[in-house]
């Protein structure tokens, strides 16, 4: 029965790959419950290799014995978590609004600025991705200092918007390009204004692409470390910066770092499980068949 054999081979390969893919996540989650010795000895399997302890969750005030008590680490953790949410959602909304408008313009109207035409403008936006963020470190530090944006939520949202904007424009321009211009023209003839045609016809059709662009930019902002470390300190610090700061003078507190990392990857796992198909749908299928 070569068919059955075929199946077995395919499933074996898939299972092996699943284990490879899921292992880092498993390791992060399980390390939350390990003491230093278990980490150093490379114990892997809970209850067999090591006895799970509440160490990690206690460090951020979320273990059963600390959860109902006053806890400074927990307050700190929740503050950072909330900062990350604000920064990534805020920046993504802003980038989506600005990026969609820019992409729609680039897709539908002909611009000319000196020798620059639409293609050049599009490339200019996309080329921002090539620039290593490190190059921007000093200028932004100086700029933010002058504008009093250092360590502020607004400052962080603005720089995140800037950094995901090229991707949003790219995705959305692609989306708008697949929508035939005749659709807007039909809407104009049917009685819409230009804005009416955009909001009533084009936006609903481009929605899958917008959802994909939004999710993608949330993920990118959520993972961002460099600018957060550079431009924020006590007030606007985000979760990734807090994770990195767990390397104290007494060595690394693995359990609390793992607990924070788990909290940081949890939203991404949820996105991965429930929203991944929207990303795929938005990025692969043309909007009009």
């Amino acid at each position, binding site marked *: 029965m070569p068919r059955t054999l075929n199946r077995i081979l395919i499933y074996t390969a898939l299972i092996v790959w699943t284990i490879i893919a899921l292992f880092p996540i498993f390791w992060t989650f399980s390390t939350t419950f390990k003491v230093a010795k278990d980490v150093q000895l490379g114990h892997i399997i809970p209850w067999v290799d090591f006895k799970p302890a509440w160490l990690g969750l206690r460090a951020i005030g979320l273990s059963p014995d600390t959860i109902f008590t006053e806890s400074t680490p927990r307050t700190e953790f929740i503050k950072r978590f909330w900062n990350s949410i604000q920064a990534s959602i805020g920046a993504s909304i802003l980038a989506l609004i600005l990026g969609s408008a820019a992409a729609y313009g680039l897709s539908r109207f002909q611009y000319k600025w000196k020798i620059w035409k639409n293609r050049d403008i599009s490339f200019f936006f996309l080329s921002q991705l090539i620039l290593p963020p490190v190059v921007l470190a000093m200028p932004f530090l100086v700029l933010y200092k002058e504008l009093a944006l250092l360590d502020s939520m607004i400052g962080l949202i603005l720089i995140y918007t800037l950094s995901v904007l090229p991707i949003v424009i790219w995705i959305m321009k692609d989306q708008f390009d697949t929508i035939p211009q005749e659709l807007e023209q*039909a809407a104009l003839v*049917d009685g819409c204004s230009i804005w009416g045609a955009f909001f009533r016809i084009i936006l609903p059709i481009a929605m899958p692409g917008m959802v994909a662009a939004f999710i993608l930019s949330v993920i990118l902002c959520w993972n961002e470390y460099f600018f957060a470390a550079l431009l924020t300190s006590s007030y606007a610090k985000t979760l990734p910066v807090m994770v990195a700061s767990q390397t104290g003078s007494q060595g690394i507190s693995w359990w609390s770092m793992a607990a924070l990392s788990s909290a940081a990857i949890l939203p991404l796992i949820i996105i991965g499980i429930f929203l991944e198909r929207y990303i795929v749908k938005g990025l692969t299928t043309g909007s009009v068949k």
Partner: protein
Amino acid sequence: MASVEIIDVRKSYGDQEVIHGVSIPISNGEFVALVGPSGCGKSTLLRMIAGLEDITAGNIRIGDKVVNALPPKDRDIAMVFQNYALYPHKTVAENMGFALKLRKTPKAEIEGRVKKAAEILDLVPYLNRYPRQLSGGQRQRVAMGRAIVRAPQVFLFDEPLSNLDAKLRVQMRAEIKELHQRLKTTTVYVTHDQVEAMTMADRIVVLHDGIVEQMGSPLDLYDRPANLFVAGFIGSPAMNMFKGTIRATGAPHFETADGTRLPLAAVPPGLDGRAAVYGIRPEHLSLGGELKAQVTVIEPTGAETQVIARLAGEKIIGVFRERVSVKPGEMIAMSPDLKLVHLFDAKTGLRLG
């Protein structure tokens, strides 16, 4: 319903002019076809009537209003696009009712009018479907439905049938014509297919490279093409044409470069010796007579026989009601109906006489 008047309209893209001063009067209730080869500016002209393109110079009037500066939504026109341009996220009923909804028409009235249009177009079973669930022909009908529910002043069609297969095209052609007879709405219909134009229109405007070559009823254009372009464009298969000289000496005739003599009924005054083009339609040739041509292909369709042959170094096509038993390579004799020969000036291409 309203008349449409296109008055010396020009259109430039950048410094390139693509419509060079076109004037077309269209009266109330008329069905006018704009026909011409691809790229001649038909769509551009139609889109200027719709308000989707700026008018570089000249005026367009709908009813008694100059509409140059009006946006499409204020022109009270409906347009059917080549790719139908149905809204993919709206159902058939929503597509058809969208314009009425924008005009804040009461819901019950929208439903009534959509239903009525759907009945006319046989779309009732599909009202709740989405465009992607329809066949090409059905989508085409929805696009028409979207136009007719509004009862606009003018219908504009831009090659609405060219995405359909041949059989459906013929069927829809008849349906659109019937619809026009029923609604009597002024219609401007763009097509590159002269058969479509001939069969549907009250009047045809032949466009070529951004100018009007000729305007007239289908039979006018067929019987008296104003120039070589129209002569070659209207009629299928196309008119046979030979270059040569008009001769009045002896029996009036037309002499091609290689000395072949083509018969003429008479030479119009002052044209003896004029370099000209001799035109005869394939269906105006009959079997037997003085022209001897060598057959290259025979295409019987049952009802008629199309013979492709060579005469005076040129291709000549004849369409005969009789069955033809000649084989390729053999000679065939044919003769033109002298009353139906066309002469054109060789230099200007204009009709002579």
